[in-house]
């Protein structure tokens, strides 16, 4: 089987601008919102946004793992302040990622 590439980013940003509810709602919009269909639409929109936000949180796993990897492999030796060793280590790390 082959491997898939996944989406780099979810559609979270897109959904943000759509509904700025509240302030400018006319009476009609408010009444429509309070109907069953309006509530369902609103919920659907909120679920979509929540799903996107969950994906954003999941993406942190890779970031955290990447940064932890660098810290443990490189920054700890950096603290030892051995220039020569550090140069060797940096090159070795680059080749290993």
């Amino acid at each position: 089987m082959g491997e898939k590439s996944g989406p780099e980013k979810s559609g979270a940003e897109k959904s943000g601008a759509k509904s700025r509810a509240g302030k400018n709602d006319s009476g009609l919009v408010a009444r429509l919102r309070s109907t069953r269909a309006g509530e369902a639409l609103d919920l659907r929109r909120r679920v979509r946004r929540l799903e996107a936000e969950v994906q954003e949180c999941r993406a942190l796993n890779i970031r955290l793992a990447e940064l932890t990897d660098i810290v443990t492999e490189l920054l700890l030796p950096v603290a030892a302040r051995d220039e020569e060793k550090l140069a060797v280590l940096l090159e070795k790390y680059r080749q290993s990622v």
Partner: protein
Amino acid sequence: MSGVSVDGQGVRARARNEAVLDVFFDGRRIVSFWLQRDGVRDGDGWLFAWPKTLREFLDGTTEVRVVVTRTGQEVFRDEIAFGSGRGRVAVVNQNGQPISLDKYLRRVVAFDTRTSAELEPMLDAIDEVIAALREVGIEAFLAYGTLLGAVRGGKVIGNDSDADVAYVSHLTHPVDVIRESFRIQRELIQLGYRITRYSALAFKVDVEEADGTIRGLDVFGGFMMNGHLYLMGEIGDPFQESWIFPLGTTTLEGRTFPAPADTDRLLTAMYGASWRIPDPAFHFEPPATTVRRLNGWFRGLRVGRARWDRIYSRVLKKMPGPSPFIQWVASMEGALGTYVDVGCGRGADALYMSERGEPSLGLDFQPRAFAEAQSRSTDNGLVTYWPLNLLEIRQVLATGAIVARRPGRTVVTARHLVDATKKPARDRLWRMCRMMLAGEGGGKLYLEFLVKDGSDGYAGKHRVRRRKPAKIVAELEQWGAKIEHRETIAVSDVPGASKVCRLIAEWRAVDG
């Protein structure tokens, strides 16, 4: 199944129920498909149109047979003339090897064209990779099509074309299993293997066979969490660890390999309860929740990569000369400490700068792109080429740190990179440029990208999409760069020529 006919368009058939069909040309299986899933409505039946990947071969005459996969019943057999009708239809690759289409309709050299002696090197490769993984503490086993073939009949599956192994980590959190995957990669590289990462939990190990052919074996990572097995690239099922461990064995082409403790359960998770029934056109369709989890946790490291892999897997054209862009850059710069070309492609510009005496570094995520420049530069100690995937932060930070430590002035160029990448990759590019250029030695970033798509086919040739200069400038400024120069020029004198923007940016002081 009735009314089966075959012509230059494809295979037509009437069927009340879904059916999987195999198509043979002169006795050799070429493609398999689901009539209704992969076909389109055609009168009172269905038409499976010849896939794009097959059409270029359809010239000549061949005996076409159509067979129902499940029953083996022949539903069509006739001599068919395609195109000119001259000669026999030959579905072969550049090396003359017979090829067929896999379940995703990609061209592959399938196992059914190999003798068992020809399969030996692959079995050796599986052995070697499983042993190497064991050496770094990982208990791997046969997976996906390779496991399916072994358990179903002790043989590789005829329409399959690669080998898969998998492992289930003893760790139980995405961050930990990703870090473990990084460690495995590091240790396999130390053992001398080349690794290409697919995702944060799957990679390919290149194994050199006796005759020098490089075979890629896919290694899929997995782990248990909250009573579920998550295994790249398709599984997220309720599962028990005891169905995997302790590993058992299975037999493939007469050799013994590790297998999960309960092969039935794992194959059911992979292919559904009907895994015993052959289906060469099987598509994985994991539930949306599984796809979302695996995407969110592990994927996003190779966005857009398949396209460039395809471009560079073809026979490459003659090595290009230096670009007008690099000649423009060189005309403005004196002696450098380091010249870096990010997204160097074939590597011609880095080669050119090194020939002018500048220590040069070409970076591209596809090593095949710069392989020729690299081999040409063996007696030129001034140029090196490194693979770099901007979407992998570890590579970006390590490469940035190494260049930042080099003495002297640094010039970074990126020609047709920002117009071939999206913002996540560009953000990493700006980060790396800042690391490389904000140090004491100083330096500049030179960019060239498409801003107006003309009628000259330039965008298609360079495989780029136009970008708004204001947007790129805003991104750079957000990352602390100052724009020193900005111009828009036509790429040629031809009427309707495309236009590119050239930018020069600088980072003055290290601000973190």
